């Protein structure tokens, strides 16, 4: 049942690659340097996980990059869908969360996903409760950059 941090990172990377590169054709890659948004308006989109592994997945990115991603999703001019940006980024996080959940099910974890929530926010708004671990991945490429974060706590089972 237990899954270690490296395995979670591997599953998260696989999920992100499938959504951003394979599906959206945005060729982003994990980068070692921290992503800085330098005063730009940023969005934070999250999906809660509950079950044998509790936690949440978060995506933080600038509003400008959120527009670019949703523009790619809809194949449309960003000016045509202002009200859809929060919804579209929520759907991106939802797809990454779904794939991560499916990947973690290979380790025996059973979880339920919450409904995506998107709001204005920064990386530090994505809190790590006491006793939870955090994975953070910085991504860049195709003219966009973002931070993917996953906070989690595994249920303890007696053997």
């Amino acid at each position: 049942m237990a899954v270690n941090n490296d395995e979670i990172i591997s599953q998260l990377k696989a999920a992100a690659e499938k959504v951003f590169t394979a599906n959206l054709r945005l060729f982003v890659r994990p980068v070692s340097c921290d992503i800085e948004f330098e005063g730009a308006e940023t969005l934070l989109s999250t999906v809660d996980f509950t079950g044998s592994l509790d936690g949440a997945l978060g995506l933080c990115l600038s509003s400008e990059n959120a527009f670019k991603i949703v523009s790619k999703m809809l194949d449309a001019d960003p000016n045509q869908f202002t009200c859809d940006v929060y919804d579209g980024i929520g759907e991106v996080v939802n797809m990454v969360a779904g794939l991560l959940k499916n990947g973690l099910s290979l380790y025996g974890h059973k979880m339920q996903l919450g409904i995506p929530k998107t709001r204005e926010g920064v990386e530090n708004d994505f809190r790590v409760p006491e006793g939870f671990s955090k994975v953070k991945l910085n991504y860049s490429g195709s003219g966009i950059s973002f931070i993917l974060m996953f906070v989690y706590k595994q249920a303890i089972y007696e053997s």
Partner: protein
Amino acid sequence: MKKIMVVEDSSVQRKIIVKIIQEAGFKNEILEAGDGNIAIDILSEHYSEVGLILCDWNMPNINGLEFIRAAANVPAVKGIPIIMVTTEGTDEKISEAKKAHPNLAGYIPKPFTPQKLREVIDSVIPKN
């Protein structure tokens, strides 16, 4: 010509699905619902006109599984084919959906390609 109903809480995902259906050459009118509650309301009025339902799983209020389970118990609508389009892609979830509705005609895990969606719809309803 029967209508296609898209039940999906993300307005962006609904737009993507509708666009794929229209660009694939299906001329069916499309009904859109943002959750299972709205879908039930629409179906109660238009059930005889609907020929296919595309349904997400994780939605607020009544989720997709609850919706298809309810649809399976209504004689007038249980014959309408349903395709699940969802992030819930584990074998366990697929099996759960199949048990919930005997007329589950397809299961498309997100993210999906336009080609995949077209192929599955093609297999259920003829292009007009």
